[in-house]
């Protein structure tokens, strides 16, 4: 018997069973939801995100402030680019890293940041498909650890908790929102979901099919710790400050 089979059969015995019982549907867990149920839940979540986009943006702004995001509202792409350049200038940034989120090329960001005399790099391998090259990965890591600001869009946001959801992938490195001392996330209406329920309902199919990237991050405010005498301090491992730039109606 393999270790696994032995282990699991030990568990079966401890449960007082002679063989593995397949669970019958349990209303508390979504495990037994049919594909149709799951699809329906996902469709409803998406429809709500679109129909109530403006309301959810307001909720998001409020919740984000509570979790420690510095929230900025801008009405047009030019202002957004200018604001982000200002934030970078405020940190005396010399090196800025950004993801390939569409929103970041929809606003004239690169020009605005470069105008302040800062280098802005995109977190995308120069030679896609060759990321197993360890020296190149070493370079990427160094770049992230030495960058002053990391800029990303959002894959989703969650109004209930003030959370930004990112799926690291090609063009969105894991470290861009983590290693630099400041992180700026740019959000547009329509990208905000109501709560964690809607997020997992929408993502379930991707999780189950294995098409999902290697990881997912839910980010709610800056890195923080209360481990020394219970005093809350930001920036123990990740960003000390995080900015949420909301583009669109304000």
């Amino acid at each position, binding site marked *: 018997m393999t270790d696994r089979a032995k*282990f699991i059969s*030990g*568990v079966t015995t401890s449960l007082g069973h002679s063989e593995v*019982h397949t669970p019958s549907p349990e209303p508390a867990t979504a495990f037994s939801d049919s594909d149709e149920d799951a699809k329906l839940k996902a469709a409803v979540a998406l429809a709500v995100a679109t129909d109530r986009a403006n309301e959810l943006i307001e909720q998001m702004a409020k919740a984000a402030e509570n*979790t420690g995001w510095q929230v900025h509202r801008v009405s047009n792409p030019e202002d957004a680019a200018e604001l982000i350049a200002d934030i970078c200038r405020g940190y005396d940034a010399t090196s800025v890293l950004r993801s390939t989120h569409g929103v970041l090329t929809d606003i004239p960001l690169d020009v605005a940041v470069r105008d302040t005399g800062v280098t802005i790099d995109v977190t995308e391998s120069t030679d896609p498909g060759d990321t197993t090259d360890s020296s190149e990965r070493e370079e990427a890591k160094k770049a992230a650890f030495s960058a002053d600001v990391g800029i990303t869009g959002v894959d989703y946001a969650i109004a209930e908790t003030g959370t930004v959801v990112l799926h690291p992938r090609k063009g969105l490195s*894991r470290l861009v929102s*983590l290693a630099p001392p400041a992180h700026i996330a740019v959000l547009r209406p329509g990208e905000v979901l109501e709560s964690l329920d809607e997020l997992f309902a929408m993502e379930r199919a991707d999780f189950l099919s*294995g098409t999902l990237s290697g990881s997912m*991050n*839910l980010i709610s405010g800056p890195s923080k710790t209360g481990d020394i005498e219970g005093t809350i301090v930001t920036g123990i491992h990740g960003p000390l400050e995080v900015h949420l730039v909301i583009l669109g109606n304000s």
Partner: protein
Amino acid sequence: MKPETKEFRSKAAQTLKNKTVLQSLEHVYTGFHEGRLKAAADTPDWEDLRTKGKAIKDHTIAHLDYYLGLLADNVEKNDGHVFFADDAAEARKHIIDLAHTREIKTVIKSKSMVSEEMALADALIEEGIEAVETDLGEYIIQLAGETPYHLIAPAIHKSRQEVAALLDDNFTVGDPIPGAGELTMLARAKLRAVFERADMSVTGVNFAVAESGSIAIVTNEGNGRMSTSVPRIHVAVMGMEKIIPSIQDLSTMLRILIRSATGQRISSYITMVNGPRKPDEEEGPDEFHLVIMNNGRDKLLADPQMRESLNCIRCGACLNACPVYRKVGGHAYGWVYPGPIGSVVSPVLTGLKDAHDLPNGSSLCGACHEVCPVKINIPRMLLELRWRAAEGKSDPAERASSMKERMLWKSWRIGMMGRRRFDFGARISRFLMRPISKHGWIKKAPPPVSGWTTTRDFPLVAAKTLKQRLAARKKSVDANRNRP
């Protein structure tokens, strides 16, 4: 980790003497506890969430064998590796072997109570591998050579001065004490360097999702994210009970976990891992290993009275709420899990005979049951363990009571079971107690009952029993009534 549950009384007594630590901790626990209360009050469907959380865990544990198989299948489908470890030694050996074959030099550890069961960091260091705890609290504890004091705030008993002495080589006692912010930045700089050179990470698992083969790690600091971004190998370790069936159950479980742990609506970071990095990703581990450990949990599972304790999601709310934990501190409990939940699982996992003082160290006030996000009835299990330790009926080897104690309670029971025996006992007790009492109280009883009066006084048995007094009263009332 070697259990030291036998020393509960002496270690508790030690903490009780330390007034400054007690005072500063009171503030912290109250902060956590009140934060939780407020978070619960702000969540309109809080009780429904708890009920749902309990139902999810009850269901999963009742089908644990099925979900373990499903989880393992799906982790492998995502190109991850699964290792099943019967005990801590097996898990430790597997991880050390892995580190050796991959020629690992530096391991970063994220907070994990399961890895404490393995005493993993020390074992890696003994093998010549640098192993650094990266949760700030755990890092401080590691520098001090201690074990965690609290499930989610491991170094909460350390003062800023002690932390400064540990973190800053140039600090000498007498120097102005740096603020928490300054110390945190010092730790940030030190740990940054470690993150940059780390080639393997070991993290815990808050929830493992069976249907998708993914794990969720909850942190405020971001060390969990570093661990899943920088090193080329990621090893996640979990107790076998940490499973939930569906990805959609996560929203319920995360809500109750985080609110109960810190009173936050959400932690800064929730990281989900679905195997190693995808081929076109620039960063992330090349290998993902999941170690699923039993280490005595099957004993809890096979025991209908104790099975419920496997529902625990390690939020620490019962610790913050417990009047005993708040006074005796985390180290008194002598093993990985302190507080009320520790008093339930440690005796079963490490042996009741040595740990029988743990279930006794409770006032049975029920606060732990009231705050538990998955409604674990801890007081019921504490009573069950007390009974087992006293009677030894379920397992004679577990009996911890002395012959003297059993004889005493046996005669007590005989005395209580008959009216005439009871009356006789009451009279003779008063007669025997009177010489050693003063103003109706006994301050110091002789052996074999001297233990009773070390921390409290015992009242002298009344001259007349309640029955006698009632009879006398009735007589006088009747007499008055019959007066013409």
